[in-house]
């Protein structure tokens, strides 16, 4: 029953934060933070055997569901505080709502519920940031076209997924058909087509190349803080549900042989190669972030090419750890853009030297995103690649999958260079942190300290926001090293 309360609190908190935030931004964010704290406490305290039976279906708590609820609620808390610091107002509500539907989708015992819930939640995560505050710098017609494209991609992927799940559960699908029919060549073809349709839904939802235009336009327009809920975590939940369905309905016998295997690998490798390349050549932070998320999704898609237990477990580890690292990267991009009023790398020379804590947070994010041999994330990457393509082709794809070393190092090198461009235009005083505390107790009363808190927060905005990014980077690092949640 606690699981249902988690979903209700996250959902109600998300809706409340969005509605109140339209009138009073600060109060809306506060509502979101309180809801995220309650969700975190409940997610930690949930008994291991917690489940809810609703009629003939139900919600089942797994360690993966608990882990995602914990990590995501922590992320929402930090993103909400960064939202206040960066002056945006459309992050906390959709992120909480997306958390509620992701927990519902991952805990639901039937895939229809999962995909319908994910469709509903993803729409909020895409449209609210886009329509409410972001997508600036473009004409209204471009903004409208981008949002229409984005919402249609989400609706389209949901519809594709539900139709293929319905086929699977029908009397002629693999679940309902007779064993005699299951052995036929026609059924083999139908299963292959079913798998490809589901992968198509995944490609549309996560914006894999060549279906990436809507995702790229969306990510370059909204605040980077809105990207984790819409893409990193949203895609993670969708792919996890699709993988679970694929394992049960399609099975590895179909995935490993035939043309489906080659097509899925082709789609995945295209996104891995061109996603990494695009992240390397683009100069603005939003594109680096967007294409890196797309590349991560491409790598996870390789699990559909085998659908065996090892690949699916690796995909689970990869998706959760990479979503956490891209949340930290999104937070870093938002804070950097806010502090230096610039989003092009060419103008951000020396950013890390000016705000060392932000530099430290980025270094940890780098480590979490790339991984080291022996860490869970690195091993998951290797398993996914070599599971789908053993031998030399796998080695080539593994090298392509390591392009984060290139584009993240480029950002790091820019940060360590001599300050220049927009960085030197920002006064040092605006970026400083609190100095050493004078010895002894503060002579001021608690009331005075409380009264001075808002002005202190404004004064040390850069320091506090960098601490937020550092927190997210630490969470990402833990997941990158420790691995899967369930």
């Amino acid at each position: 029953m606690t699981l249902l309360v988690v979903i209700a609190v996250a959902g109600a908190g998300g809706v409340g934060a969005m509605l109140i935030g339209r009138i009073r931004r600060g109060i809306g964010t506060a509502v979101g933070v309180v809801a995220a704290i309650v969700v975190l406490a409940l997610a930690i305290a949930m008994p291991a055997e917690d489940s809810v039976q609703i009629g003939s279906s139900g919600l089942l708590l797994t360690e993966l569901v608990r882990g995602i609820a914990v990590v995501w609620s922590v992320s929402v808390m930090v993103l909400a505080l960064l939202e206040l610091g960066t002056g945006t107002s459309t992050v906390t509500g959709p992120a909480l709502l997306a958390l509620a539907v992701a927990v519902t989708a991952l805990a639901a015992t039937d895939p229809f519920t999962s995909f319908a819930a994910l469709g509903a939640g993803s729409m909020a995560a895409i449209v609210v940031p886009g329509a409410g505050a972001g997508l600036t710098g473009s004409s209204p017609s471009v903004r409208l076209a981008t949002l229409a494209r984005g919402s249609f991609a989400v609706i389209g992927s949901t519809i594709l997924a539900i139709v293929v799940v319905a086929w699977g559960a029908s009397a002629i699908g693999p679940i309902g058909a007779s064993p005699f029919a299951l052995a036929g060549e026609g059924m083999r073809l139908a299963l292959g087509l079913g798998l490809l349709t589901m992968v198509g839904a995944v490609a549309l939802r996560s914006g894999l190349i060549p279906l990436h235009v809507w995702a790229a336009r969306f990510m370059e327009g909204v605040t980077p803080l809105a990207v984790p809920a819409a893409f990193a975590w949203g895609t993670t939940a969708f792919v996890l549900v699709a993988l679970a369905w694929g394992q049960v309905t399609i099975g590895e016998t179909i995935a490993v042989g035939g043309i489906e295997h080659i097509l899925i690998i082709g789609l995945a490798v295209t996104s891995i190669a061109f996603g990494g390349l695009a992240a390397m050549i683009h100069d603005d932070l939003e594109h680096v972030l967007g294409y890196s998320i797309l590349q991560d999704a491409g790598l996870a898609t390789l699990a559909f090419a085998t659908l065996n237990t090892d690949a699916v477990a690796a995909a689970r580890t990869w998706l959760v750890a990479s979503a956490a690292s891209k949340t930290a990267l999104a937070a870093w991009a938002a804070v950097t853009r806010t502090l230096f009023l610039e989003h092009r790398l060419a103008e951000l020379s020396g950013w890390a030297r000016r705000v060392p804590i932000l530099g430290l947070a980025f270094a940890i994010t780098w480590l979490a995103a790339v991984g080291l041999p022996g860490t869970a994330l690195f091993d998951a990457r290797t398993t996914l690649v070599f599971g789908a393509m053993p031998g030399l082709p796998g080695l080539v794809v593994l090298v392509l999958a390591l392009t984060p070393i290139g584009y993240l190092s480029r950002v790091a090198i820019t940060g360590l260079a001599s300050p220049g461009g927009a960085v030197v235009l920002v006064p040092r005083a605006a970026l400083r942190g609190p100095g050493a505390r004078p010895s002894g107790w503060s002579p001021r009363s608690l009331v005075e300290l409380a009264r001075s808190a808002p002005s202190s927060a404004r004064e040390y905005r850069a320091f506090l926001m960098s601490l937020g990014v550092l927190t997210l980077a630490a969470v990402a690092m833990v997941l990158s090293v420790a691995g899967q949640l369930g």
Partner: protein
Amino acid sequence: MTAVLVGVFVAVWLGAVIAVSARDQSTAAIGLAIALVAAPLLADPLPSPALLGSLIVAGLLAAALVRTSAPARPEAVGAGWPAEALLATGGAFAGLGVSYGLAAAALTVGGGFGFGPGPEPAGVSLLSAAGLAAAAAGSLLAVALAPAITGRAGPRHAAALVLLVEAVLLLRTAIAGAAVELEVVAWAALMVAVAAVGSVLTRLAVAPAEDSAAAGAAVGAHRPG
């Protein structure tokens, strides 16, 4: 029971045609509401009152969201009601055909999957709840697909998006059986979310250009470069 189901199907068909072809937005919203309220009744046995209520309330809410998203002024429509009615009828026959084919394949041992023709599917009924649900799904798909994909944002586009979701729900019911309890709640949420998205897109489309420019300038403060 069959007569009642056919009557419900006609209501869905009629509502869908009105929703996408009426020039007056109030009339179109009423058509949408009729289609969305009638569609959950295409089932035998009917869902429990709570589930039925959830879907009907979601349908009414979706229709209201679409209706309130734009100022009440006549909107240019696509091909007109006779063409839309013809499309919906064609879609219904296609849906019936799909339902019949699926039922026949299920009755036939290995039918359609490489084992050659089986015995005649004598037990397949065209006018069953599943068959009529598939027909209604075909109707909705036929009238909603084109405006949903290619139409410019507006009340008609929003109505088409909602009808598209309803069509998928009907199709899913026709080929995979009734939705379970939790799924119905998720479907209701999805329908309302899609209507809300359609409403947002409509508002953006009809907003005066100066408002959009002002909003862009205000938000531009946090998006330099």
